[in-house]
């Protein structure tokens, strides 16, 4: 491979990496918000709703994301909807990882001792106030390392969009690999790009984690 070709390949992969970053952020944002809602429903919600949230968690986590993406994206014409691909990926992927995020948040919220609720109430705090000021900051610290796991899995799962006509880092690498029939170097380059993306995310996570040690 000439150096010009190497550079153009690297640029091509970098474009793919940008798409991966964009899709990842969208998915993680949706997963965080929806996951928190699901966790709240399960812990404090009206019981039937809590059970529904639990059932959703089991079903969503049990099914491969590839199947969900293909099933939902190609159903759009039947439903008369015309949504852009990235939006479908962010929504479906986000709701999928919300089920995982919900488990992380549930464990963290529940780990805050009950006595703190009692103490807060004894001080005359309202439920919402108590939750946001007392419980949430403690739970956030507990949930960070496992949440980081979920986020990193989400980043790597963005590669599934190539099945429904999307394009990102792995697709770019595969295109180079199939053109040259040299898939291993192409994949190693893809891994290097992933490493940069994921390492940055885990650095941010570690930094936040250190700041919140032992509340």
């Amino acid at each position, binding site marked *: 491979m000439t150096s010009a*070709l190497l550079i*153009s390949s690297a640029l*091509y992969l970098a474009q793919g990496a940008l798409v991966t970053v964009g899709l990842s952020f969208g998915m993680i944002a949706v997963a965080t918000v929806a996951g928190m809602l699901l966790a709240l429903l399960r812990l404090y919600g009206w019981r039937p709703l809590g059970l529904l949230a639990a059932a959703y968690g089991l079903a969503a986590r049990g099914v491969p994301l*590839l199947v969900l993406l*293909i*099933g*939902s*994206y*190609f*159903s*759009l*014409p*039947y*439903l008369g909807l015309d949504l852009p691909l990235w939006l479908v990926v962010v929504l479906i992927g986000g709701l999928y990882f919300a089920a995982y995020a919900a488990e992380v948040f549930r464990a963290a919220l529940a780990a805050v001792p009950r006595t703190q609720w009692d103490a807060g109430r004894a001080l005359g705090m309202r439920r919402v106030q108590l939750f946001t000021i007392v419980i949430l900051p403690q739970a956030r610290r507990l949930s960070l390392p496992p949440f980081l796991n979920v986020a990193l899995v989400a980043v790597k799962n963005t590669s599934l969009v*190539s*099945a*429904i*006509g999307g*394009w990102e880092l792995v*697709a770019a690498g*595969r*295109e*180079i*690999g*199939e*053109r*040259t*029939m*040299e*898939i*291993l170097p192409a994949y190693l380059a893809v891994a290097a790009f992933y490493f940069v993306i994921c390492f940055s995310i885990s650095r941010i996570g570690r930094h936040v984690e250190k700041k919140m040690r032992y509340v």
Partner: protein
Amino acid sequence: MFHRVSRLAGGLVALAMGLGLNVAGAQESRLDTIVKRDKVIVAVSSTARPNGFIDENGRHTGFEVEFARLMAKALVGDPDKIELMTTTVDGRFPAVLSGMADFGISTATIYPDRAVRLAFTRPYIDSSTLVVVPKGSPIKTLADLDNEGVVLGSTNSAAMVDRASTYAPKAKAVFFDTDSAAALALKSGRSTAWQADSAAANFFVGHNGDAFVVLDGSLGTINNNAVFMKPGDFPLWLALDTIVREYVNGSRYGEYAALYRTWFGKEPPPQRPFNQN
């Protein structure tokens, strides 16, 4: 009873997939939609050299992609009035069955089992299968494949799987997701022979100096690759089939032959035996 249960279960599964609804009633043909839209949407591959791939300049090209442009030229008068929907093999059939793409040109072989659920035009190209082995391999002929100790690699497609079990039942067969992975298996010694579409096999051997050789003859029958679409739309099917025929052995044969030479470096099959009556 069983049928009712199975139909009910099938219906539930369809509903669960969000695909149980079929738009009912008389519909205009997709052909009218294409003409009105003034653009065709074609499902293609970007990881199947030389059929559909991204070249060194980042351009999506290849025999099938350029053939899709010829189809667009015939349908809407301009080879550039085309939207390429790039999917992996998992997504190519859903892409047309759902109506997201008008039709697909994506290394799809006509296979009797597939014809039940998918409509094919007549073939736009034949595909034959070659076997590649390392130079100096004890496997000298196609007949040598059927031996214990042979590990025959290929992609995971119905035709490859059937050929492996028909022509080399004693060998161990291994199936990979992509041609490049199957090629890597041969290179790294994970397999001792590789069966592949002739274009991919020839490219690989040419690309790797003289480390590998192609065995004489092709393995099994010649298969047909064709344009595929959602069944049930006769006007569209007829238009596509007619256009394919015109390129492959009719009035547009010249353009087809030029395309064929560009990508495969040899002459296509002759237009047809001339029948003088």
